[in-house]
């Protein structure tokens, strides 16, 4: 009996030792992996290679992956030789969350759609995970591939001096309206906020739902709040909030949320506005379910598709977000964004991947415009002959805009963005007052 415990202790020690060794082996295995890929990446004059070019996108966006596939068999076939494109897609509703997990475990794809929240992209950039494209372009000899306006928007978005993402879209935002319904109610496209309110009242009186918005997604409603503030207080109003110089709960900011909440309170967004998602809202507009639809020009793809668009592309008009009387902002400052741009990761960046980067930068704009009618932030060298009037109109608007502004949550934290967008629907249904909404968002943004 006296010998047994000693043997057991020995056994326990031995087993613990084996366990500890296994753990140690696992962790050191990981380290070796990283260091070997690191040395590959920085390997002197010898050309570095990759066996595949991975791309990760959102299932909701098929334009990017289709364009890349066309490039692979067309303009980029040289780059794809030995380094074929391997695309993958995951759901976009939890995009930022999944991207954080991938980034945290050093598993980002060579190319992927960027984080939706700019502050998260800034974290990635600070952590050295995202390829500096200004430097890469210098090395690769790429020049003038990105439009200066789009480059400026991206740098403003991530608050960087260099370019870290490519504008696979370049969008302007504003109100799209159903011309027939405007004629029926006898209203003209408004240029000021009070004209917008009058138009909505006239449409409502004529039995037409004035606005369509995806309340369950939130952002189509919070965009209105943000734009009102930018028109009323000037282009730097939201940056001042991000810098802590102003608060969303200040009365002049609450006025913006109140203005939108008043539209919701009047029932102008229709019944159950908080339960309408993006696709439903799009479908409502394209089947004549409402008169005004605040949306970005990325929706051109839907507008130009006769199957989806029952009201006809020629029946859709555009007007810029109206001015607020006496406000510091101007109607010519167009809300613009680069959609969800794409980024390249620094991990596993090789000469082969560099070839792809160069090819995408130089050819993406032409292919996306020709095949998907997508207006991008790339320099376009060939304009397709059969381009729709709406697409040309958007290109003209982009060319004539004197300045651009970012959206409501662009400078907010991830938490501020989420809270703003999950509560945006409440403004459209009249469930939240402007002050309540702003308090929630301000608290989350500070948090």
């Amino acid at each position, binding site marked *: 009996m006296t010998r047994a415990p000693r043997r057991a202790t020995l056994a326990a020690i031995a087993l613990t030792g084996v366990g500890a060794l296994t753990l140690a082996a696992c962790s050191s295995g990981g380290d070796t992996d990283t260091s070997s890929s690191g040395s590959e990446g920085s390997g002197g004059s010898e050309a570095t290679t990759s066996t595949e070019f991975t791309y990760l996108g959102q299932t909701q966006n098929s334009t990017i992956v289709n364009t890349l596939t066309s490039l692979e068999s067309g303009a980029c076939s040289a780059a794809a030789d030995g380094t074929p494109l391997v695309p993958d897609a995951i759901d976009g509703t939890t995009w930022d969350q999944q991207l954080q997990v991938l980034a945290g475990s050093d598993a980002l794809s060579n190319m992927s759609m960027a984080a939706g929240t700019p502050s998260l992209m800034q974290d990635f950039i600070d952590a050295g995970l995202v390829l500096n494209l200004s430097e890469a372009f210098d090395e690769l000899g790429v020049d003038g591939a990105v439009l200066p306006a789009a480059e400026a928007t991206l740098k403003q978005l991530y608050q960087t001096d260099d370019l870290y993402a490519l504008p696979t879209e370049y969008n302007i935002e504003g109100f799209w309206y159903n011309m027939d319904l405007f004629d029926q109610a006898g209203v003209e496209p408004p240029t000021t906020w009070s004209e917008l309110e009058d138009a909505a009242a006239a449409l409502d009186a004529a039995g037409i739902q004035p606005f369509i918005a995806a309340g369950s997604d939130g952002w189509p409603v919070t965009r209105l709040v943000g734009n009102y503030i930018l028109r009323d207080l000037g282009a730097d109003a939201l940056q001042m909030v991000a810098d802590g110089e102003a608060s969303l709960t200040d009365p002049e900011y609450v006025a913006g949320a109140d203005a939108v909440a008043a539209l919701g309170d009047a029932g102008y967004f229709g019944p159950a506005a*908080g339960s*309408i998602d993006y696709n439903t809202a799009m479908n409502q507009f394209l089947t004549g379910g409402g008169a005004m639809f605040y949306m970005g020009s990325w929706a051109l793809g839907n507008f130009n598709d006769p199957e989806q668009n029952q009201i006809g592309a020629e029946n859709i008009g555009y007007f810029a977000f109206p001015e607020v009387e006496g406000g510091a902002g101007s109607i010519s400052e167009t809300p613009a964004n680069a959609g969800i741009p794409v980024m390249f990761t620094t991990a596993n960046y090789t000469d082969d991947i560099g070839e792809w980067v160069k090819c995408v930068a130089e050819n993406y704009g032409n292919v996306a415009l020709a095949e998907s009618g997508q207006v991008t932030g790339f320099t376009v060298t060939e304009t397709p002959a059969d381009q729709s009037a709406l697409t040309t109109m958007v290109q003209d608007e982009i060319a004539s805009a004197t300045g651009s502004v970012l959206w409501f949550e662009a400078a907010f934290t991830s938490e501020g963005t989420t809270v703003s967008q999950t509560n945006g*629907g409440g403004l459209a249904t009249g469930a939240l007052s402007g002050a309540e909404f702003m308090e929630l968002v301000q608290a989350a943004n500070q948090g």
Partner: protein
Amino acid sequence: MDSVFRNRGATLLMLTPALLVYTVVMLIPIVWSVTYTFQSGNAVTGFEFVGFDNWIAFFGDATAMDALWFTLRYAIVMTTLQVAAGYGLALLYIFFLRNKSSLVRATIFFPVILPTVAVALMFSRMFEAAPTAGPVNTILMWLGGDLTDFLGDPGYSFWVIIIMDVWRSMGFYAVLLYAGLVEIPQDIMESARIDGASGWKLVRKIVFPLSLPILLSSIIFSINGTLKVFDSIVALTNGGPGSATTPLTLYMFRTSFAYGQYGYGSTVAFMLTLLCLIATVFVFRSMRKDVTR
């Protein structure tokens, strides 16, 4: 066998492998998670020691308190309803359906095996208000009511979740409690009947006290399951409208993975663990007194 267990060496040797696996997959992650509660940051930006800041922040965080309150409300309402419904069904199986209950049991158990997301999709269609009115709204309007946005209104959406989850889980509790009820010796029931107990009196005096242990297990099961509710709410309302139906688990998930605050997320997780522990001990204590009375 007895001599094997008396040999401490053999016992240790047999226990160690399991203990080792348990340590690696359970204890180490738990301790790791607890150390996160004293840090801020995430895997991308790196970690920083912040002492008790996360804990102080939790108690001053209105959203966390709302989530805590929602979780408690949900757990209490759900536990009451699903155990009561399950118990009622189990009694129905035993006293009314007797040997013919297997088809009914299978039918009522069926929702348990359905994927949560499918059930949530079905319920969101049933209670839909836009773009088309779902069956519930159609019936309401036919009866002269107004179109109601059940999932867009905080008051209603709570009850839609409750209805869905009770429908989903009552079959499980019915089977669990049924297993306990069939174990009650027939001779005791028989003698009670001879003594003149029948119907409600039989249930109250004989069946209920004798099924208390399995009822206790069900309640502990239910409390712990409902405090940790996640999938059904994410699939049905995603915590909305606003954050009206956000439980602690969803808030923990969002803080950790959407807001990139691993430390604060771990703090929320730890609070949830404490809550489960307290609830279990509380239920266990209060019920044990009853059993021994």
